[in-house]
């Protein structure tokens, strides 16, 4: 079979840009709720606009993914690994869309103005409700854990493809010469 071996360049740019942003978001989020220091304020002020940027890019990326073919996984990859690859990819898509929405909804339910900085304020998407706030806030926490664990699996698997199997899966996203 002489099929497509690389992701589209636009998909690769989006992947690596969002990888940096999402990883930064996970660290910013974990850090900002762990400290009483001045870092808290500037991390929160960074977390909100960066989160909305991830949401917008995730919508673009999902649209692109649904209209463009991704290179197929190697034919000799065990079935469970194929399943894990597909499931984790869709999990990552779901989380990169859900997390910003939950964050936005949680601020709305908490009665906070949703301020992105630079004079930009988003409307509330949910009524002020303390119980709803608490559910969303805790969901945001535990889904962030799930997000980070999925990222670890994704990175580990990508390195396994690149270093152990050397089957071109990692190169399909990094680009570069075929060896």
């Amino acid at each position, binding site marked *: 079979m002489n099929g497509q071996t690389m992701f589209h360049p636009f998909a690769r740019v989006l992947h690596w840009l969002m990888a940096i942003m999402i990883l930064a978001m996970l660290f910013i989020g974990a850090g900002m709720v*762990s*400290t009483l220091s001045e870092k808290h*304020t500037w991390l929160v002020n960074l977390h909100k606009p960066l989160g909305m940027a991830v949401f917008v890019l995730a919508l673009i990326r999902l649209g692109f993914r649904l209209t463009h073919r991704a290179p197929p996984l190697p034919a*000799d990859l065990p079935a469970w690994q194929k399943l894990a690859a597909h499931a984790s990819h869709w999990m990552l898509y779901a989380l990169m869309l859900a997390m910003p929405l939950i964050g936005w909804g949680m601020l709305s339910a908490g009665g906070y103005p949703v301020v992105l900085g630079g004079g930009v304020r988003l409307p509330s998407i949910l009524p002020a409700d303390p*119980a709803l706030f*608490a*559910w969303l806030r805790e969901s945001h926490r535990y889904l962030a854990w799930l997000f980070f664990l999925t990222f670890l699996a994704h990175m*580990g698997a990508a*390195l396994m493809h690149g270093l152990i*199997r050397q089957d071109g899966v990692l190169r399909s996203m990094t680009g570069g010469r075929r060896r």
Partner: protein
Amino acid sequence: MRDTPSKRPPNPIGRWALILAAVAGSAAAFGYVGGWLAPGRLSPAKMIDTLQANSGGAHPGYRRNHAKGICVAGYFESNGALAPYSSSPLFGPGRTPFVGRFAIPGGNPYAPDSSVPIRSFALRFDLADGEQWRTGMNAMPVFPVSTPEAFYEQQVASRPDPATGKPDPERMKAFFASHPETTAFLAWVKTAKPSPSFATETYNSINAFYLRDAQGERRAVRWKVVPDAASPGTAPAEGEKNYLDADLGNRLASGPLRWHMIMTFAADGDPVDDAASVWPDGRKEVDAGTVVVASVTPQDSGACRDVNYDPTVLPRGIEVSNDPLLAARSAAYADSYLRRTSEEGHLPGTASKKEASR
């Protein structure tokens, strides 16, 4: 060429180790940043745990500090005098409604009103354009300490002795002796008495902020609201534990209560980022208008119940200073708010909110 057999390195142990190191290293970095691998860090949870412990444990559904309070509503009548200094529409002439709360410090919602010589007043102004200004003010001119670390130490030092139910005076003395920044507060607190009324108190922002004008210039300020009410009211009966709410209700029955909002501008060299130091008298002051309290509601059913009076929620035209206590208040209030809303929402693992409906 995806269907060519993958070429595997002959001895992949080193490569597997590399992959493991990348995954474990990432997890460790996340653990450090999140604080799980940095147990010495002063976290919001650690601060709130300490406030809770000092209040005889958690009181589900209540704020972890300033737990005993009452909701009020009213409006701010701006006179326009501050408009040249802040671009916020709040300070143009006109009215802005607010949701407010009077309270006493401490985490015990059943503490006697006479237990502390300090009262607090929190306001959330709801601007017409959807912006908000939240401020939590206290009826004292200065904060005891300058940093969250020192505040934490103060809380640890003032933990009630199980034998007496009161803080150990020796530990308190040792704390104040090792914190010379507490001098101004100690001088004030010696003269302070629990006021029989919320209405007669002057409430201070304590932390400094910046006002930013329409030209983009910023100026450091502190604010206070100064009461019109002159009559101290009747002294509470000996041994009476709850008199502040009744006094407020009685006064409001004969009409709204008013405070003047006074902005004090720092002069060159005044400490902007230190809540433990007072600015000298004679600083420029601007009377921005009147805070009018019109009605009162118990806190378990009032609009203030679900408001986190985080002092860093600000409209355009007001900005935080670098006072480290502001970030700490924001972070700690958020933790307290999550705890009480989780109890309110009966989230799994939270204490029953039964007590709060009393």
